[in-house]
């Protein structure tokens, strides 16, 4: 089995989940309705939990460092998350559209990984299937209702989608180990995932009376998978380790 390719895959999944979970948790306490505040916060907690589970696999099975160290004390260029997850929360329209686009990609990725030759990821996919199902159910419901709600909500959702889409396509940036992990049966690859994702989101976007924008290949936000990040990641990581850095010897 190709360990480098496997690690690369797990790192990018974990980093995506950690950073988007961190971002979405920023809404806790300031959401648009109390009930939605609870729902969005739970999903953020789920995402951070998924990241932790993936780092645990990296640590326990693949010999990487302890999850807290990896997540809170790694340098920026070692992070493999896509730019999409790094963007600030913006207004609720953007956060919801990101949640919709990202979570469908994540759901399909785990669906594909349920067939993986790497058992630990198969088990994880099974374990979190229910959580992810709720996430996409939630995002679809909001997208449809706000897409068809009133003039303002329709316009907001469409412009959030236009803004978010080139970033979302960055999720599928290929890794240098793409062919090996496909050959080893670890993961069927980003190209295949993107194809399934486009099919999946198209029907929901249509039901929400929204339109997918056309995006030039050159506008896609690539780089994250190779350690080149948006201007937003570094400050976020600095925030995450602010407390730990005050006393690195301490147990928190």
């Amino acid at each position, binding site marked *: 089995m190709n360990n480098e390719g496997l690690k690369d895959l797990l790192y990018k999944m974990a980093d995506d989940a950690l950073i988007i979970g*961190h971002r979405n*948790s*920023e809404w*806790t*306490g*300031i*959401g*648009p*309705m*109390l*009930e*939605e*505040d*609870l729902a969005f*916060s*739970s999903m*953020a*907690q789920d995402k*951070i*939990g998924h990241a*932790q589970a993936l780092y645990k696999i990296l640590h326990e099975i693949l010999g990487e460092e302890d*999850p*807290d160290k990896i*997540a*809170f004390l790694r340098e920026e260029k070692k992070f493999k998350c896509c730019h999409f997850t790094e963007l600030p929360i913006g*207004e*609720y329209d953007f956060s919801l559209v990101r949640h919709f686009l990202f979570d469908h990609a994540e759901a399909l990725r785990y669906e594909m990984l349920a067939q993986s030759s790497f058992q630990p990821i198969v088990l994880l996919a099974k374990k979190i299937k229910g959580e992810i199902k709720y996430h996409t159910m939630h995002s679809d419901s909001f997208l449809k*209702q*706000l897409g068809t*709600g*009133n003039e*303002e*909500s329709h316009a*907001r959702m469409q412009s959030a989608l236009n803004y978010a889409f080139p970033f979302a396509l960055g999720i599928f940036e290929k890794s240098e180990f793409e062919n090996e992990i496909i050959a080893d049966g670890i993961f069927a690859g980003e190209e295949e995932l993107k194809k399934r994702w486009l099919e999946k989101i198209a029907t929901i976007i249509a039901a929400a009376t929204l339109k997918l924008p056309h995006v030039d290949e050159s506008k896609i936000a690539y780089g994250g998978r190779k350690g080149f990040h948006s201007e937003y990641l570094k400050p*976020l990581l600095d*925030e*995450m*380790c*602010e*407390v*730990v850095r*005050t*006393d690195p*010897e*301490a*147990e*928190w």
Partner: protein
Amino acid sequence: MYGNTSLTEEEAKRLNLTEEDPIKLAEFEDRITRGEKIEPGDWMPKEYRKQLLRMIEQHAHSEIVGALPEGTWITRAPNFRRKLALIAKVQDEIGHGQLLYSAAETLGKTREQMLEDLLNGKSKYSNVFNYPALTWADVAVIGFLVDGAAIVNQVINSKGSYGPYCRALERICYEESFHLKQGHDNVVYLATGTKHQRAILQDAINRWYRPLLHFFGPPDRNSQHSEKLMKWKVKLASNDDMRNQFLDQYVPKIWELDLTFPDPNLKKNDDGIWEFSDPDWDEFKRVINGGGPCNAERLEVRKYAEEAGRWVRNALMSKNEKYVMPMA
């Protein structure tokens, strides 16, 4: 002040005037004396409804505003365990707000109206949330001691007479036990940790000591009593009794960690009553009237949440649905 009533002199007077139907009032009071709960459809004295609504509404506001000081550290919590616990804890406070607004709604005021009254200053929330969370240790102290104080109050109130409020409080108290445990865990890690950790913890305790004494409201000797609210089981314990219960439960838990409170006079007397220095009740009044370090920010942030979320609620609203209050 936190699901707690403090009356003005005028209000206390009005409460004692009987202008209600004496037969219905007697039935109502008998029911409470028998230990039965009052439910939303029941006849109730106007003052009962008013005081209860005010109390539950303030309690609900305290929950959602109370989410903000600790929220300060959500993005900076130092590891997975603390980060997840903190998000879940702050989330619970919003959930408590949700439960309490529903309970208050059964008394005839909409959630939206209550939120509006919070933002326009007509309705108050607990003073303790007008202080800043300066360091990570504040999160520990809030989780352990502020939640500890809130629990003392909430457990007592859960024995009250209004069904929907008691039910909400039962659920809330169950969740609060998680808040308390995670707060204590955090305090103990800091207290048994490095010099730096102990130092920030002691500093946080020093800063929260007075607001914690203020939490239960002015001393009994300076506040308006209402026999009636006691009889109606709206108020179940005096401010001093609750404060004493809090000190009794929590001071030893700080002392056993070789930490101190910034008050040389703090001690338990032989009669079981805790003694402490005057915590500056003028400051308490100043903060209630908007002069605390964070009053402006708290309201501004809540206002942002309401305003920024309005387009979402507008889009979801169905124009032909009339407002209906929750059943119970």
